């Protein structure tokens, strides 16, 4: 299928500078590294990138705040230092940050005997659980682009959350290995044609991916029925399910390499854990005779970085407690949501450098917000502004297929970066703020 017709925009001329104009986009899990922001080569076709860049330019209106009121950065830092000193069991969460920001956040949790759980551990739970319990076969973006002659997308969220997915991963027709992928098929399970039209407004009707009817609650049944097809066993599901399974099985049988794609940050039907488990089970069965793999796209807004860095530094992906040098992992109980609800913490430190992880309701708990948008900032006890990784400062991040790591080089603006990186903000809280935040205070 062809890619959407690009409509290019460029940054307003006030932003033009002699600096390298190609940046890596921070705004979704695909982290496209081909964004040309200005000049004749400007190529901003992605709605998400355009919206994100526009918000980024407004960032200078995001000051430090104490109890919702704008304050100087040095006052806010001093107040934040006092908050931290007083806390006996802080919760470090949010964790929309770059690799260095996550490292600093982990160190903060460690030195303060804190709880630590990235906000997206909920969305990542089915994938983590599957990895810890069963056989999993996965793949990555370029592999799907070049290998998969059948792409089965579960739900339409991918198309909304990763706007250039079709253009960059599915639409290209010539594989690196020389095969012609013009006849690549794309099926979207659980999204109506109407939803597809809305998600892909510039794609001609005749080229829209095919829609396979399946409601949120029916997804597990559909997968079980499909597994029965693969194993040549009888199934006795409802007629709608059987029809959907027939269509999918017909497509899979003809394909050489089937990629199953879904968005982890969005809901995967009403039973995501069971659905993901069944998906991986199905894929394992398919690989007995043919080739297939999963591409669970997740970890936008720093979450993939948080998961990877946390795992290599602590051994666990999320939901941990530091206590006197020991690390305890309890995925069932140490979720940020539960810890806040049960008041197991006495200070919520919420890191949100990408302005994409809404601050939860914390009741009367003090909140130290690093980053975040203004609505959240007004609810926080202290808000310290932080730069947008990859635009305000150089940053390393891990892409949403959890293999590729990228170094994003900051774009220059005439007025300089908006705020210091998460790493420096956190270091200022426990060190010599005047030294760490030289130039900002």
């Amino acid at each position: 299928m062809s890619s959407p017709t690009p409509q290019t925009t460029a940054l307003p001329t006030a932003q033009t500078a002699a600096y390298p104009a190609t940046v890596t986009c921070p705004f979704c899990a695909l982290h496209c590294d081909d964004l040309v922001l200005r000049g004749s080569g400007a190529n901003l076709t992605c709605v998400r990138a355009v919206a994100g860049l526009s918000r980024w330019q407004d960032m200078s209106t995001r000051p430090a705040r104490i109890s919702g009121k704008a304050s100087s950065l040095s006052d806010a830092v001093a107040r934040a230092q006092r908050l931290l000193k007083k806390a006996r069991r802080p919760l470090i969460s949010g964790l929309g940050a770059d690799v260095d920001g996550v490292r600093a956040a982990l160190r903060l949790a460690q030195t303060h005997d804190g709880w630590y759980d990235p906000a997206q551990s909920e969305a990542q739970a089915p994938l983590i659980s599957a990895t810890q319990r069963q056989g999993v076969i996965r793949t990555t973006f370029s592999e799907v682009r070049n290998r998969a002659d059948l792409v089965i997308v579960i739900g339409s969220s991918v198309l909304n959350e990763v706007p250039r997915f079709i253009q960059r991963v599915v639409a290209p027709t010539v594989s690196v290995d020389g095969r012609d992928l013009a006849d690549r098929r794309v099926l979207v399970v659980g999204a109506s044609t109407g939803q597809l039209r809305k998600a892909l407004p510039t794609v001609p009707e005749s080229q829209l991916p095919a829609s396979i009817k399946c409601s949120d609650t029916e997804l597990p049944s559909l997968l079980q029925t499909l597994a029965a097809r693969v194993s040549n066993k009888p199934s006795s599901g409802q007629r709608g399910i059987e029809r959907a399974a027939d269509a999918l099985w017909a497509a899979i049988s003809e394909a050489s390499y089937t990629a199953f794609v879904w968005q982890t940050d969005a809901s995967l039907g009403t039973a995501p854990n069971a659905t993901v488990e069944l998906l991986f089970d199905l894929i394992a069965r398919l690989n007995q005779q043919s080739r297939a793999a999963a591409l669970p796209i997740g970890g936008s807004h720093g979450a993939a970085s948080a998961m990877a860095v946390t795992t290599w530094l602590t051994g666990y992906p999320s939901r941990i407690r530091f206590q006197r040098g020991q690390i305890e992992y309890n995925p069932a109980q140490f979720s940020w949501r539960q810890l806040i609800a049960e008041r197991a913490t006495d200070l919520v430190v919420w890191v949100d450098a990408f302005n994409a992880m809404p601050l939860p309701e914390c009741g009367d708990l003090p909140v130290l917000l690093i980053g975040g948008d203004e609505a959240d900032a007004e609810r926080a006890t202290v808000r310290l502004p932080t730069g947008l990784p990859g635009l305000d400062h150089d940053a390393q991040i891990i892409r949403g297929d959890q293999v590729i790591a990228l170094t994003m080089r900051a774009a220059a603006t005439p007025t300089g970066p908006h705020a210091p990186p998460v790493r420096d903000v956190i270091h200022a809280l426990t060190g010599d703020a005047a030294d760490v935040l030289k130039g900002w205070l």
Partner: protein
Amino acid sequence: MRIRLRGGQIYDPASGLAGVTKDIDIVDGYIAAADAEPSDVHDISGCVVMAGGIDAHTHIGGGKVNIARMMLPEIQRSDDPMAVVTTSEAGLRYLEMGYTACFEPAMMPTNARQVHMEFADTPFVDKGAYVMLGSDDLLLRMLRDGADFSQVKDYVAWTMSASRALAVKVVNPGGINAFKFNQRRLDLDEQNTHYGVTPRQILTTLSQALSELGVVHPLHIHGCNLGVPGNVETTAESIRALEGRPGHFTHLQFHAYGTEGDFKFSSGAAQLAELVNQHPNVSIDVGQIMFGQTVTESGDAMHQHAGCKHAHPNKWTIMDIECDAGCGVVPFRYRDKNFVNALQWAIGLELFLLIDDPWRVFLTTDHPNGAPFTSYPHLIRLLCDKTFRDEHFRRLHPEAQKMSTLPSITREYTLEEIAIMTRAAPARSLGLTQLGHLGVGAQADVVVYRPHDDLERMFRTPHLVFKDGTLAVRDGRLTDAGALLPSGATHAADVHFDLGITRDLTRWFDDHYTMRADSMVISEDEITGFGRGRLVKHKTSRRE
């Protein structure tokens, strides 16, 4: 400040010293001639002194290592967690054991940045990595299309340079790629079903390229048919396929299986040992297995997938990665009462004991594939103490005992040979001129052992470990000064390539991939920024 280690017995094979009593001086992080008054003296009479250990093949960083961590929290919480360690733990445990340099052998070009990030969080030890080539579509395409050899060479050099690699590894040549096309096996002279290229062609091309690029370490070869009974023939053929060119065969134990006997599984160690003895161009590391729970982490997605049915516990992850390579993470438990595992244990030891030249054998367990690296002291004792070895042999599955020649092998490794295998030889093979020896000018990574009849005990807990001249570990414990040590250096090869290849790569990546070629290039500040440690660039000398 001048530190003197007085009265130790020096085992420095690179300098020709085997048990000579000699003082060692350390000044400003390097070994100095003992020609001035020291400010600090350690009386180590009777102690054994060696350079810091060098592990030339250990999986300590990168995507698949991280998948294993996430997969196996129960191992981390268990009594024996060392198969799955954090980056901090890895650096610390290696240092405590007297190892001061570690090398990740399976770095994918597209995952290289993550490897270096994990290295930045691995304290104390020097490190480096070998970059994987041979299943990447770009190389296979070049071979299929008969590309100019100079273009292939430039591509190899560019890849090494971009990924800051010290050497190149090939894993199941063409096979990881073949699996993506549903091919389930690939023998040395069998064609990759899509590209029509054979492993033999890939081995020959890559080893020739490295030779002409002047990279010191030869092609690091994880051969065809990993783990398949009968693969001894493939390995023998692969050795011959080098035709005298240098090559390093890794975890040879997993490639040394015959098909004799009732279980159709037998030892090919003697056959391979003889070949290695006859081919001075070949070096190996063993990949010894030890009994217990561990996890296998390999780029060889084809054979890891085939082996999933043996996973213990019953879970695993296989990945096809970015038109580059793949990986497979499969937990495994080796049992002495299991015929195959028991014989694998014996095969590894047979290889050690039947290959004559310790300069061409590195001591490894392919951590964690055969066993965690913390089993090295136990392995050293098995090699040096025949009585101890025989005792352990008698615990094996009785049928496995009948299939091994181990009882008849009387050889006991000497301390000098251990020093060669664990220090001098890997340093020389990797081109690390300032490591692995105690000559003047060497980096002061020095280990002092209290002698003990029980070599396992001796090697498990060194008395003193110096890293870059700082006393970092005393009697198995990190010192205050050790805790403040900066990161170890990252070792990479300084390879040269014609810039024209970057034009080609830019176009190929733009045409087919989901990131730009430029994004693959790891800049120096990514490795050295924020006081992360030096980048040591080892010279190469390109020859046309």
